[in-house]
């Protein structure tokens, strides 16, 4: 039987190879996949998030941990699905039309994946129609919109307006972020949540999920 704390430590260290090896060995010893996820992997990512917020981790540390988490989840996912376990939530994420910046959006996507969310990244310069198509095809719980420019911020409002027009707005929660975006702007355009920076994305997404009817 492997020392399961190694799974926690490997994810914290961003060591995907060891994390997968420990998880595989544990499964071979009939450990429950849900136990591995809830008692070791999710706490490891919570600790990663804490260290990042406390400025003890840089983004590369965080992404490497996220990659270790993802690799281990891929091993566990078929078993989790068979047992009826669900991801933390489904997210469609993209940078709004006219804006090519994607670093912040990519970071949030990685953090959400590390936090156990299933993320569908629709890229940058994404039109409202593309968001609508992604909602219809992916059935997400949350749509996350990013913008870096003051002149592309209005596209966030346009996107939300178009979601309403297409009749899909009420089926998702909308969270927004980006350098020029403010909480006040989020409220003005009818978004459900605003994140000041990437580090709060997972906690915001979790709180939105808590408000989402099952």
């Amino acid at each position, binding site marked *: 039987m492997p020392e399961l704390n190694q799974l926690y430590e490997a994810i914290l260290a961003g060591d995907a190879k060891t994390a997968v090896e420990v998880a595989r060995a544990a499964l071979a010893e009939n450990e429950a996949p849900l136990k591995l996820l809830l008692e070791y992997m999710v706490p490891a990512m919570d600790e990663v998030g804490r260290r990042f917020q406390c*400025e*003890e981790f*840089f*983004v*590369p*540390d965080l*992404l*490497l941990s996220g990659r270790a988490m993802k690799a281990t989840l891929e091993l566990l996912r078929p078993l989790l699905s068979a047992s009826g376990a669900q991801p933390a939530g489904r997210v469609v994420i993209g940078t709004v039309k*006219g*804006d*090519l910046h*994607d*670093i912040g959006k*990519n*970071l949030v996507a990685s953090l959400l994946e590390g936090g156990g969310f299933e993320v569908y990244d629709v*890229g940058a*310069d994404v039109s409202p129609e593309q968001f609508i198509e992604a909602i219809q095809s992916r059935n997400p719980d949350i749509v996350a919109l990013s913008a870096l*420019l*003051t*002149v592309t*911020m*209005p*596209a966030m409002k*346009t996107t939300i307006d178009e979601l309403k027009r297409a009749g899909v707005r009420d089926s998702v929660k909308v969270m927004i972020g980006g350098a*020029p975006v403010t909480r006040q702007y989020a409220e003005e355009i009818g978004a459900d949540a605003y994140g000041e*920076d*990437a580090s709060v994305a997972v906690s915001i997404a979790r709180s939105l999920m808590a408000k989402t009817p099952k």
Partner: protein
Amino acid sequence: MTRRYSSLAIADAGDLVFGQSASPVDCGYGLGIGRGLVYPEVNFTLPPISIDAATWPDVKEHYHNIAKGVLRRAVALEAPGIVLEFELLPAMTETPDWGAEITALLRDHLRLAYERHGLKNALRVTPTDIRDRNKPPALRAGAPWERLRRSFDLCIAAGADIVSIESVGGKEVHDRGLMWGDIRAIVFALGVLAPRDVAWLWDRISLACAASGHAVPGSDTACGFGNTAMQLAHQKMLPETLAAVVRAMSAVRSLVAFEHGAIGPSKDCAYEGPILKAITGCPISMEGKSATCAHFSPVGNIAAAMCDLWSNESVQDVRLLAGSAPEAYTELLTYDCRLMNVATAKGKSLTLRDWLVESDEWLSPQAAVLSPEATHQIAQAIIGASTDYERTVAAGRAAVAILECGVSQGRLNISAREGQWLSRLDRELTELQGKEQALTEEMMRANPRLFDPASYDLLE
């Protein structure tokens, strides 16, 4: 038209000082940049507004009011000269006629300011590099490149005195390298991909300028590389040591523009400017403490030490108590320049320069690589290397050596985790010397869909 710098135009770090360049640039209405005076370069942008056919009259009204306010304030303060920078927004490059229309509008204001008030001036125009619309970016063909090329042509025809660009070649690999802390990818992007794109692009930009008979091929900036790293470091997402080393390495790809026709002034957001000035002798524009309207930087004073134009980077056209924000920042920059110009007139420019340097130098790794001495060391390392790749590695190693020296002498305080990164940078950059071919093959294998080899003349 191409050249290769193998010696420093300004051989002594003591001669690197604001207002003085070895190869001044004359342009616009009577403006000589780098001939002794530092001039304000005012940059501005729109408040939140969609840019489309319906809002276009409002957009033009903003630029009309900005130019009127900025020039009125410059005249009132008896500024000896001024540069306006018009950075096109993406939609204005996508529709090249729009960018040209604003260029002509601003040009008209500048002409009147010169004719009525004798205000020497020039207009810098910077089209947006929209070639990264597609993934992977196709840099040398397709609609985005055609629109960008046309944007340059139309803006030059509409009266741009200086043209610049923040080119994006290599950024697709560099962004990913930064996020993952992948030093090999960063070096490949800055030392292999970006120089190839900059050379190709500037061969064309400088030809367009030459054909116009009036436009000056200004420069390229590593904004998308060095400033991305700087902002991520500011947010504690990346180590400052990494951002400082990226800054030094990014000077190589910007230098390539000068080797393919650019003559300066360099662009404000190119904090690598002092390194370029040491090598080329061309005048540089810089931004620092008076660009806090746009972003944070840990180099607010030291950035001014060697500048020839002093910029606010970008400010939204919003109302302040003092008037419009672009107008207020014109005043701020004008006073900054007055101080530098009086210091020069009194023979005290080196004293002021040294105060600007010393007030920042050892408070941040990013400032430590921008002192005249550090700039000089990095510039020496660059010209002593044989290829753009080796120059990039050499610039990075020089920056690491400067930081390590600062730490060992107790002048630069960095955290333990920053220290670990500095050691890693030292080790990996040393290992990368002489490995261009191997690294290129490795990156092409590892990232088959991240970048387009044909856009960089790399055979698959």
